[in-house]
């Protein structure tokens, strides 16, 4: 049963990613990425990371993908605004050829690790309580640094988005 769910979610994730790389229209690309992100959330649930499953759905599928789709509709992109990509298929093929050795190297290394039980843990792993305990004791400093980073990003987005007066351009 778990194998069947795993295969279905993997196929959805890879198909969504492939759609995103190959499709011309950015709206379809965003929908492909959304499918891929949701499938990865399902894989997190299979790995008994319940809190990560929740965070992935809320932050990625809920916040980031909504901003992307909102922006795509806000900018009202027409067909002539899209860049021409005449060499896309050749570049994708070259990228595939380049990435295959790296994949094989990593998978060779991973397959030499001894196999262990990857079944779903019932309790005491990956839930919000255990993760919170770990986050606020061992990982307190990185957590605070992340909050400062988010604050800086907030200020940066406001500064970038505000209206600025036109300056005279010197020397052309």
């Amino acid at each position, binding site marked *: 049963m*778990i194998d069947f769910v795993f295969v279905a979610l993997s196929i959805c994730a890879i198909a969504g990613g492939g759609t995103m790389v190959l499709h011309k229209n950015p709206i379809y690309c965003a929908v492909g990425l959304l499918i891929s992100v949701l499938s990865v959330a399902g894989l997190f649930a299979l790995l008994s990371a319940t809190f990560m499953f929740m965070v992935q759905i809320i932050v990625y599928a809920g916040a980031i993908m909504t901003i992307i789709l909102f922006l795509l509709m806000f900018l009202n992109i027409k067909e002539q605004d899209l860049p021409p*990509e005449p060499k896309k298929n050749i570049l994708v093929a070259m990228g595939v050829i380049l990435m295959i050795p790296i994949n094989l190297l990593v998978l060779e290394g991973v397959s030499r690790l001894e196999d262990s039980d990857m079944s779903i843990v019932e309790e005491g792993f990956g839930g919000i309580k255990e993760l919170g305990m770990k986050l606020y004791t061992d990982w307190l400093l990185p957590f605070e640094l992340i909050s400062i980073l988010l604050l800086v990003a907030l200020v940066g987005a406001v500064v970038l988005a505000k209206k600025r007066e036109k300056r005279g351009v010197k020397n052309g």
Partner: protein
Amino acid sequence: MASLTGYATVSMILFSLGAIGVVSRRNVFVIYMSIELMLNGINLFLVTFARYHFNMDGQILSMMVIAIAAAEAAIFLSVIILLFRTKKSLDTDIFTELKQEVE
């Protein structure tokens, strides 16, 4: 199928698709989404090894990656809006303001 190698294969394929998208596309939006796909593949790898070693540090690292991706989304998308307003295009080859003129 749902073994360590299976999960690693899926995450490496997702990462490779993202890398291929970054190098082969010229649309700024698709490049941004490819970066997100690469981060997703790495997150899956981290969570897989967290389950393999029965240790939750990997899950916390992957949560931090998600937080950084959210910060990146705010900055990247506002920069895309500014670029689209000034140039009316999404083509990365047009954004050459900082290029040095070769004489």
